[in-house]
C-alpha cells in the first residue's frame, strides 16, 4: 500500500554565514494514513524544518516528497498553495489567528480561498467546528478576547475547515499552560481516532506520549523511529 507521506534523502541546507547549516541532512521517512506522529528532539535539531517541508510551507534543497501519491518537489508556488488549502491543516505554536477578526471568520478563511461552500454552508460548518472544539458560544470573539488555549482551539477548527486528511502542528502546546495543553492533546487524540493523520513537533515527553509513533531527530538526522524499531 502506498504511504500517505513519503520523503527520500531530504536535505535542507541554509547557506548563511561562514558555514552552511544542514538543518536536514538526508532524511527518509514514510507516514501512513491515520498515524499520530510526534517529531521530537533537542532545540535546533531540525524538527520544524522537517515539519515545514512536509507541510509544503518550505521547499527542500534536495530530495523527493510524495504526498498522497503525487510528487511535491518542484511544484509551483500556486500549486503548493492549492495542496495546502485542500489537503493540509496547520496549527502553530503562536496560533497565528488574524487579529481583530472574529473566531468564526478566522475559521471560515480556508474555505474563502477554496470556495467550495456557499456563504450559509460555510458559516454553518464553521459554527459546527467551533462547537466541536468546545467554543460554541465564542464565535464572535476576537483573538484578543480569547485565552491562549481558546485561541489554539480556534486555530484547530480553522485547520479542519476544508476537511484535510493531514494535520501539522509545530509545538501546539508550546505557549500554553498544562491544563490547556491537556485539553488540546485530548482534542488531537479525538481527531486522530476520527481518522485524521497528525504530524506534531514537540520537545516535551508528556505531550509526545499522546502520539502513536515517535520520530527523534538530532543534527538534521533521524536517529530513532519506534515504528521502525518495532519492525
Amino acid at each position, binding site marked *: 500500500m502506498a504511504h500517505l507521506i513519503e520523503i527520500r534523502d531530504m536535505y535542507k541546507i541554509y547557506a548563511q554565514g561562514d558555514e552552511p547549516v544542514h538543518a536536514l541532512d538526508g532524511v527518509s521517512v514514510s507516514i501512513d494514513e491515520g498515524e499520530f506522529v510526534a517529531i521530537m528532539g533537542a532545540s535546533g535539531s531540525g524538527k520544524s524544518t522537517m515539519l515545514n517541508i512536509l507541510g509544503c510551507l*518550505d521547499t527542500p534543497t534536495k530530495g523527493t516528497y510524495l504526498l498522497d501519491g503525487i510528487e511535491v518537489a518542484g511544484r509551483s508556488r*500556486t500549486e503548493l*498553495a492549492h495542496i*495546502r*488549502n485542500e489537503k493540509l491543516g496547520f496549527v502553530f505554536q503562536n496560533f497565528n489567528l*488574524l487579529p481583530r477578526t472574529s473566531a468564526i471568520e478566522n475559521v471560515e478563511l480556508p474555505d474563502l480561498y477554496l470556495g467550495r461552500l456557499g456563504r450559509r454552508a460555510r458559516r454553518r460548518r464553521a459554527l459546527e467546528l467551533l462547537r466541536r472544539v468546545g467554543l460554541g458560544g465564542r464565535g464572535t470573539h476576537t483573538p484578543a478576547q480569547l485565552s491562549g488555549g481558546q485561541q489554539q482551539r480556534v486555530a484547530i477548527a480553522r485547520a479542519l475547515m*476544508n476537511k484535510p486528511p493531514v494535520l501539522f502542528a509545530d509545538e501546539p502546546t508550546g505557549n500554553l499552560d498544562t491544563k490547556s495543553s491537556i485539553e488540546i492533546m485530548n482534542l488531537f487524540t479525538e481527531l486522530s481516532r476520527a481518522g485524521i493523520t497528525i504530524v506534531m513537533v514537540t520537545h516535551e515527553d508528556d505531550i509526545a506520549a499522546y502520539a502513536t509513533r515517535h520520530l527523534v531527530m538530532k543534527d538534521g538526522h533521524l536517529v530513532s523511529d519506534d515504528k521502525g524499531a518495532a519492525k
Partner: protein
Amino acid sequence: MSLWMIFKVAVLAIFRNKTRSLLTCLGIIFGIAAVIAVLAIGKGASAMMVAEISQMGNNLVMVFPERKQAGVVHQGLGGGQNMTAEDVIAIKNELSHLVQFASPQVNAFCQLMHQNKNWSTRVQGVSVDFPDIKNWTMKEGRFFNEQEERRASRVCVIGTSVASNLFGEEEPVGKTMRIKNMAFKVVGVLNSKGANNWGDDQDDTVMAPYTTVSRVLQGSAFKSINMMNLSLYDMDDLDEAKREITAILRQRHKLADYQDDDFETRDTTEIMNTIGSVTGLMTVLLTVVAAISLLVGGIGIMNIMLVSVTERIKEIGLRMAIGATPFMILTQFLLEALVLSAVGGVIGVAAGIGVAQAIGAMKHWPIVVEAGSAILAFGFSAFVGIFFGFYPAYRASKLNPIDCLRYE
C-alpha cells in the same frame, strides 16, 4: 476564489484595520485637498485680477507726460508739465477712426466741505467722455455736460463714499458743497465700484470738468494735464493707434529726431502682461507648495504602510499557509490599496473644493478648479497609496509562507 471574494477579503481587511486605513486615507485626503485648494485659489486669484484689469477701462490707452530735464530726479508717470488738453483734442480729432472716447485728467487733492462736515480727497478733472472710458454709471442725477465743460462751470459728481461722508443721509444732488472753499453744485452721484485690486476705495472721488479743475483748483499758469485716457474702438488697432499717437504728440511737442519721446503710453494689455508674469510666479510658488504637501502626504502614507509591513507579512504568511495563492494575495492587496486610494481621493477632491470655496467665500475670491490639477493630485496620491500598499504584498509573494510567518 473569485475576484468578488478577493474584493470582499480586501474590504474586510480594510475594516479590520480601521486606524491604519483611516491614516492612509488621511494622507491621501490631505495631499489631494491641499493641492486642489491651493491651485483653485491661485487660479481664481489670477482670473480675478485679469477680470478687474479689463474692468479698469474699455480698450483703455493711457498717455502720461514724462518730465525730461537734466539733473532733476525723474518724477515718475504724470510728473511732466508738457501735455495739454489740446493734445487730447488733437488726438481725438485726428484719430477719430481709431479713438472712440478721449478724456484729459487733471488731479487735485482738495479739502471738501458741506455744512459742518469735512473730507479730503482727490478731485479728478475730466471730460464728458470719462464715464464711458472707465465704466462709471450714475446712481443719482447726471454727469456734467459739454456746455459745463466748455464754460468751466463749478459743477461736480461725487462717489458714494464722498456722498456718505459729506452728506450722510441727505440727498446730495442739487446741493452745493465747497471744494477748496469754492462753491460747487453736485449734479450727480456715481454708482459704487468698491475697492480696486490695490485696496483703494474707488468711490472716494469727486469728478469735475477738467477745465474747471485746472483753472480754479490747480490755479496753474500752465494748462498741463496729468494724463490722458483714450478708449479705442478695437484693441486690434492698438499698435497702429500707439504709432499715430506718438507721431501726433512728437509733432505737437516739436521734438527733433534725436530727442526722446516726452510722454509714455500705457495700455491694459501691457498691465495684463505684467500682472500675468506676477500671477505666473505666484502659480509656480503655489505649485511648489502644493507639490510639497503632496510629498508630505505621500511620506505619511509610506510611513504607515511600512510600519505595518511586519504585521502584514505575517498575515500574508498565514493566508498563504492556509491556501491563498500568490496571485490571490497580490490581488487582495492591490484591491485594498485601490479602494483606500479611491475613497481618499474622492474625499480629498471634495474637501479641497470645499476648503477653496470656504476661503473664497470668506475673502470674496473667485475659485477656479481645474480638472488637470485634480487629476494630477489624485494620480500622485493614488500612486503612492497603491505602491506602498501593494509593495509588502509583492515582496511577500516572493517568499516561502514559512519565511513570512517567521518575518521579524
